[in-house]
């Protein structure tokens, strides 16, 4: 048992820190730290900076232009970037589609798409969910019918995160109604500029439109955009989900959220004293910190196992649940901390360069929004209920 990092790992951390010090624009880290709205251009700017250093393909092997980092290095990178308030890496191309193409894509697809993901030429979004297919993903109804050298796609995807920015969408589509639902699904890459693709925003309870409906009507997709084999899409989809769940614990995000909470609790006054000194509040803060300390070690335990070559299994379900519950608790405490200033909803104040002043402290509205927005953490990426099913089957064998 040794809880310390090796000298190489420590040196790597220093290298990441130095890079962030030098290259992370203050404009971007300020926006992230203060909960301002990030634009498409902001994400693209950060991706380009990472790419110039060869650090955008965090989870990618070197042969595809990735970092080739092991699980511990990825973890250190995650810790440092979140601590520095870097924008998150938009995961759809990098953490989701990329690994699928590397494993199941054709050589042409790899050569074409992977560099474009790194260069920022394509912005991908994830077209898995449908109105009738959420937790029960195999129920997807969107059809792709082969006609000559094209598929004709009809249906509707939903909850498509940042689809408004996307050029490309990877979709689960039904190519067969025979056999089990899982056996008739294919994995198709669709250019969002094709006629018949329509994106409609969905406003969430934080007032922001980060997700969309994507309507597909007689969309012509060249057959070469099929990944792997027809009707084998379920296998690829599941492979992707295991990658979606890397870093599922969100320890870095939890740490920065906790730091933000502490900062706010020092500034807010309750009965004339800083809120952080209020024993009731301090107790809750301590409780969640204690949970986070233990969870961070659970996370490291799985990372160490992964670095030693063990395949991630149902433990990721544990981390997903504990990680999201802890982050949601921190978000709830932060909302509570801002007191009556959770009420004003002056949304314009979140735009960069806006001349609209917030009402009350500038951290208040982002605190409320984060609380509402992060209800998603326990819903998406396999809901926490679905994760409990996995644990009870795969680990407990019940």
């Amino acid at each position, binding site marked *: 048992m040794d809880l310390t990092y090796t000298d190489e790992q420590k040196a790597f951390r220093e290298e990441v820190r130095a890079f962030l010090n030098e290259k992370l624009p203050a404009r971007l880290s300020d926006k992230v730290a203060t909960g301002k709205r990030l634009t498409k251009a902001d994400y693209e700017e950060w991706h380009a900076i990472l790419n110039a250093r060869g650090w955008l393909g965090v989870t990618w092997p070197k042969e595809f232009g990735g970092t080739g980092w092991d699980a511990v290095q990825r973890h250190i990178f995650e810790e440092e970037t979140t601590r520095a308030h870097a924008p998150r890496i938009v995961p759809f191309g990098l953490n989701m589609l990329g690994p699928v193409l590397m494993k199941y894509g054709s050589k042409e697809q790899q050569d074409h798409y992977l560099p474009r993901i790194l260069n920022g030429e394509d912005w991908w979004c994830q077209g898995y969910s449908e109105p009738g297919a959420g*937790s029960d993903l195999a129920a997807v109804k969107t059809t792709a019918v082969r006609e000559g050298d094209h598929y004709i796609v009809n249906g509707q995807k939903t909850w498509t995160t940042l689809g408004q920015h996307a050029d490309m969408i990877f979709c689960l589509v039904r190519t067969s109604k025979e056999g089990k639902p899982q056996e008739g699904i294919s994995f198709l890459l669709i250019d969002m500029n094709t006629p018949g693709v329509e994106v409609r925003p969905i406003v969430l*309870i934080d007032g922001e439109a980060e997700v969309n409906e994507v309507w597909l009507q007689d969309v012509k997709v060249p057959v070469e955009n099929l990944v792997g084999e027809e009707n084998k899409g379920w296998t690829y989809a599941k492979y992707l989900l295991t990658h979606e769940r890397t870093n599922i614990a969100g320890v870095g995000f939890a740490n920065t959220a906790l730091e933000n909470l502490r900062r706010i609790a020092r500034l807010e006054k309750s009965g*004339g004293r800083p809120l952080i000194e209020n024993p*009731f509040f301090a107790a809750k803060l301590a409780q969640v910190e204690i949970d986070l300390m233990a969870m961070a070690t659970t996370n490291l335990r799985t990372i160490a196992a992964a670095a030693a070559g063990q395949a991630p299994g149902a433990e990721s379900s544990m981390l997903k649940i504990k990680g999201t519950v802890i982050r949601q608790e921190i978000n709830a405490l932060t909302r509570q901390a801002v007191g009556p200033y959770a009420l004003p909803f002056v949304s314009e104040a979140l735009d960069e360069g806006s001349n609209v002043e917030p*009402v009350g402290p500038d951290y208040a509205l982002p605190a409320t929004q984060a609380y509402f927005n992060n209800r998603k953490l326990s819903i998406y990426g396999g809901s*926490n209920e679905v994760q409990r099913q996995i644990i009870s089957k795969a680990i407990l064998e019940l």
Partner: protein
Amino acid sequence: MNFELTEERQMLQDSLRRYLGDTVTPEMLANATESEAGHSETLWSGLAEMGVIGALFSEEDGGFGGAGFDLAVVFEEIGRAGAFEPLIASGVLAGGLLAAEGSEAQKARVEEVIGGAILGFAHSEPGARYDLDHVETTATRDGDGWRLTGRKTVVEHAGAADAFVVSARTGGDTADAEGISLFLVPADAESLAIRDYPLNGGGRAGEVTLDGVTVSQDALIGAEGAAFPAIEEAAARATCAICAEALGLMESIRGLTVDYLKQRKQFGQPIGKFQALQHRMADVLIEIEQARSAVINLAGHLETDRVKRERHVSATKNLIGRVARLVVEEAIQLHGGIGMTEEYALGHLAKRLTMVDHRFGDTDYHLERFIRLSAA
């Protein structure tokens, strides 16, 4: 022991539920927040006509109710509908204070309030958080009258108010209960500025700045420097109102969620068939019944002596805050993605219920206060 409503209250509940059910639509609520008034003028005049504002006042004050259970009946229905009319600001707080403390001339305004005129209660200040005695705004003698200077924050329905009941210090230090006075100040008074904005969960509020506002001697409400007990009592009544509103919101959310569990199918069956979700919903039901009893406790003790009353205020507000969080979070979770959307009915109700904890003291504030009052 009798937990039935009186015949009058039962009638009020029935007609109010019917009226709100027929009148309130999601579009109406969305438009109301966007509108200049910050609430629905149609709904407001409808409520006034039905006598709903009058139900918040005693017969002596020109109304026909005014007791804790009247508040509970009215606000549970308001909550059920997700409405955000100025009933608390104008009826319970500003109007209530005028009725309790006002001179004969000032009491005449109560009749206008019952008829639908809107008053605001400009009390909270930037450093106060939830402390009712934190008043920095000053009122100093100015010839025959008074000059008011200070900043009031998150004053609900400020933009719609004709006048404000303003608290200001005529003696004592910032956090003293002694030395707080109340004044009736017209909204269009010179040197009074309002910055108005929308609120999470619907409705609008404003930052009210008094930059040497002068009022005459007869603007003073009640005795100079002795307003705190009245403010505390008005806040107790407002807390009863908002807790009942929260209960109504919980009931609506429960209804929506149970319906959704029955309708939504995944894996070939209604998700309500999953035992994991059934148990969660059963817990929600149990906690909402706790909330109902807590509201009854408070409503039944509004007219008792101060310490007893305030213990119930804090007990009920604490419990409501805890249950509200559970109900909101479980309802969203059990809905899945749809529960997070602005468009679906749950979104508004969930936000409104969440914001209950940010009004009149949150869960922790009242836990601490309950302990203090119990030790007294």
